């Protein structure tokens, strides 16, 4: 299990002073990826003495190894800082970190709801990007006081004046007072803290009212159960108190409360306006859902905090163990991950080609990749993932409406009246030289042009409506390569719309391979089939027999290729006297073959199942 602060656990209760409400400031830092959010958080932690720079792990707030490796924040956390301001007062600052990826936009919105202010970090070279815009809009939507910070002023291509203009033009935020900083060099840190103290309003809750606390994150600890991260809006929480989760109605008794400094430190209470954690013997993160309101069970509030919703997975794929005996291990691993990740869903499914596995649901592609990587890395599993799918809505001729997340569940064509698929509103910000290629890409991906704006003389903001399924098909990589990495991209779910979709079946030596079939737009079926068949021909190794690879729409074959058999497999090599080496080599090769999936008599390597994903960008 990943613990947020390895080795810390819940430490003994230390008396932490409760500050008067007027001295509390709750804020978050939001930024486009790589604009320096985590580095700024590190500087703030150092400056306020929360951590000793000498003992500091780079970018402390990103607790998981994966986050540090990928340079993104997946799960957020919260830190309580004591800051002695220039005005002589000591303030309690609560820094709530937010995930920096569109997959987790609901979690972002909940952590913003726990704050009164947001530090908006913008790269002095790159300027406003798609996620800057998305985050700023979200912060404004929550009525947060926004403190613009132009970061990385030390770099060569820094142009803070231009970036200040962009902030004003694109975000409509007054940037005249924007703080010019370099988190890397520690320039501007104190100014930012002073600005937080003086511009972000103190929490406005009512201590006398019944308890209302917002859960904005949680993690599972094997000793104490769920640790819920909360912001107390009204009232207070104390250990021993009976509380109720307002959405589920479930009641628990508070075992402990405390704050993150950044290690967990127990306190006597969490007062109005404060941010911290609670434990209540909750066994499942699903019982302390992000966005839910915690209230006093004996004196419940009659109104839950706004904005709660259950998050639903948007992207699905099948996960199968490469070796069937690992099925139980996979199930156990998924259940352990789910303890910490309420957005992950899974249910058993079976495939003719791949045997027994699970249909898993994710918030998005990144979430999917993270879960897969953790399953392989932390649980030592070897997995085959099928191509991701969205949820399709099928309007049947019978009048029924069904939703499917697996192409193989698509009813017979005669039973289908129409198929609807999810669309997203996408925002792309690109330098003007790349407008053409960006629009071209979106159009290839069945995008519907919405609008275009010029936030700055050399940059263009393009809005497209895109099918979510097309984004799953390698869209990020295609966008990156066509715009040489200069485009930024963000999206949010828009609505379901009817599309002309069909299921494409892949056959190996005449046998349909369920795990390789996918749903595609009819206009693109032929070109995709051709590319996929060719890809499969490349990745399936030559075997003893000829292998026919075919793609079919219904019963009609629309593309085909042949993997020629090999004619030679002999080692004309001198092994000297070490005959056992040869035997062991043959044993190893035999073992290697087991790791491929045998479909009929054809051995298919893992990567074949993901090649469906990689066919988006080929024309």
């Amino acid at each position, binding site marked *: 299990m990943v613990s947020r602060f390895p080795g810390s656990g819940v430490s003994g209760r230390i008396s932490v002073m409760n500050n008067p409400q007027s001295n509390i400031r709750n804020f978050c830092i939001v930024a486009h990826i790589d604009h320096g959010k985590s580095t700024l958080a590190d500087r703030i932690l150092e400056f306020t003495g929360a951590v000793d720079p000498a003992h500091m792990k780079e970018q402390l707030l990103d607790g998981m190894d994966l986050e540090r490796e990928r340079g993104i924040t997946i799960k957020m956390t919260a830190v309580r800082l004591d800051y002695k301001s220039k005005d002589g007062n000591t303030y309690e600052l609560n820094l709530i970190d937010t995930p920096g990826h569109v997959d987790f936009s609901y979690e972002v919105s909940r952590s913003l709801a726990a704050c009164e202010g947001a530090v908006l970090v913008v790269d002095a070279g790159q300027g406003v990007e798609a996620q800057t815009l998305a985050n700023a809009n979200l912060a404004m939507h929550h009525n947060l006081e926004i403190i613009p910070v132009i970061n990385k002023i030390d770099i060569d291509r820094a142009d803070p004046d231009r970036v200040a203009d962009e902030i004003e033009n694109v975000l409509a935020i007054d940037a005249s007072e924007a703080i010019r900083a370099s988190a890397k060099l520690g320039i501007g840190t104190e100014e930012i803290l002073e600005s937080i103290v003086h511009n972000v309003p103190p929490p406005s809750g009512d201590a006398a009212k019944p308890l209302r606390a917002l859960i904005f994150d949680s993690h599972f600890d094997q000793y104490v159960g769920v640790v819920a991260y909360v912001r107390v809006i009204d009232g207070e929480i104390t250990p021993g108190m009976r509380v109720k989760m307002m959405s589920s109605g479930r009641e628990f008794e508070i075992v402990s409360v405390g704050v993150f400094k950044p290690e967990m430190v127990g306190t006597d209470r969490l007062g109005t306006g404060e941010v911290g954690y609670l434990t209540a013997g909750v066994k499942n993160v699903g019982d302390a859902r992000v966005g839910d309101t915690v209230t006093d069970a004996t004196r419940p509030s009659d109104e839950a905090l706004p904005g709660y919703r259950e998050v639903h997975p948007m992207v699905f794929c099948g996960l199968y163990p490469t070796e069937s005996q690992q099925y139980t291990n996979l199930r156990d691993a998924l259940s352990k991950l789910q303890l910490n990740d309420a957005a992950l869903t899974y249910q058993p499914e079976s495939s003719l080609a791949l045997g027994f596995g699970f249909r898993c649901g994710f918030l998005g592609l990144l979430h999917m990749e993270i879960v897969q990587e953790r399953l392989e890395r932390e649980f030592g599993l070897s997995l085959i993932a099928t191509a991701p799918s969205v949820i399709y809505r099928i309007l049947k001729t019978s009048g029924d409406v069904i939703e499917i997340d697996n192409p193989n569940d698509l009813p017979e064509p005669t039973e289908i009246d129409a198929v609807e698929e999810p669309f997203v509103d996408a925002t792309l910000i690109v330098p003007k030289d790349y407008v053409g290629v960006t629009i071209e890409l979106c159009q290839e991906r069945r995008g519907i042009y919405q609008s275009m704006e010029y936030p700055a003389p050399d940059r263009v903001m393009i809005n497209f409506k895109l099918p979510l399924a097309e984004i799953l098909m390698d869209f990020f990589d295609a966008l990156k390569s066509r715009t040489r990495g200069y485009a930024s991209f963000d999206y949010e779910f828009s609505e379901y719309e009817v599309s002309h979709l069909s299921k494409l079946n892949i056959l190996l030596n005449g046998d349909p391979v369920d795990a390789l079939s996918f749903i595609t737009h009819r206009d693109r079926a032929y070109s995709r089939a051709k590319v996929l068949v060719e890809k499969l021909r490349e990745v399936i190794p*030559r075997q*003893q027999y000829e292998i026919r690879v075919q793609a079919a729409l219904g019963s009609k074959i629309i593309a085909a290729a042949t993997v020629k058999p*090999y*004619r*030679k*497999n*002999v*080692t*004309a*090599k*001198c092994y*000297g*006297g*070490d*005959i*056992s080496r*040869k*035997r062991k080599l*043959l*044993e190893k*090769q*035999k073992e290697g073959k087991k790791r491929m999936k045998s479909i009929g008599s054809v051995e298919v390597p893992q990567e074949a199942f993901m090649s469906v994903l990689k066919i988006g960008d080929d024309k």
Partner: protein
Amino acid sequence: MTVNNSTCDVPPEAAYVHVPFCLSKCHYCDFNSYAGMQAIFDDYANALMTEIKRTGSEFDTTQSRPLDSVYFGGGTPTVLSADILGTILATIDETLHLSPDAEITIEANPGTVDEYKLVELQQRKFNRLSLGIQSFDDEFLAKIGRVHTADQAITAYHLARQAGFKNVGLDLIFALPGQTLEHWSRTLDTAIQLSPEHVSLYELSIEEGTRFADLCAQGRLELPDEDTQLAMYELAISKITSAGYEHYEVSNFARPGFRSRHNQVYWRNDPYYAFGAGATSYVHCVRARRVGSPAEYIQAIYLGSDGIEFSERLTGRALVAETIIQGLRMLDGIRLSKISQKYFTDIASEFAVVIQRLQERGLVELVGDCLRVTHNGLLLLNDVAQEFIS
């Protein structure tokens, strides 16, 4: 399957001596060999002789049989002086005894022998010379990092004849980077023209840790495609057999009566002694590998250890599997009853299903008691072998 090991317990009649030194390392080579170690040649030779003597004293030589074959391989054994090589051989004769007509092979790099050395080797009882020619094309010799030219190779061959070697083998490599069927054909013609007693040919394989592996990873090695490799192999078979050689093993061809006795010991899975760094012995059903580094080997022997870093006693299926997969490399095949007898098990019924499946695919044929690969089976020998592995 119950397998009794007692019959693999017969004393060895062959010995292998490893000389892990070369003038320079060839780009394809992943054998246990090192360049630039001239300083320890003498110490190494002494360690070898110590190991040989010790082995001789450990085994009951009154019960053992004289050696029918001794093979000096490398590396390049001929980087050592004929004097040292002769002394090592004499030590083997004194302690383990050579039969009067023993086959005594030494591998030689054409760049490391002159007429004097060849005469000396001949005088010191070496009677079979295996010349590492690899190619008769200077372009490819340079490309793969050999230290000699084609002319030097031809000269070395003639000098060996003049020195009195009546049994000379040539080693060739095919499927070299950039090599075409025509290139290979010319090398084969030259080899046949020289009329050696024995020809071995090996297909280039890219092994980890070699210069070629690095180049390959960088995409800077253009290797012939699978169809060309196959054509090269088949061309070699047809040319060499037409010239009167027997194709008796995957990689080996011999004039009648000149099959390598030593290699047949390996292919029959018979026991053999081995001496030297990285060498693997097979005595009393135990396969034992000595430490690869020459310095570590010298030190181990000097300190009284046997220098063995890994050993395993072969039993049961592994033993039978190795015997079958090695045996099928020989085109004469294996006699099922003989192997059954040797390991007290019934191979024919044990592997009846496997054999039948392979027969149906036309990869093996069973003639009476003799199981052997067909031409297609030879080309797919790894698939055939895999069937016999559990």
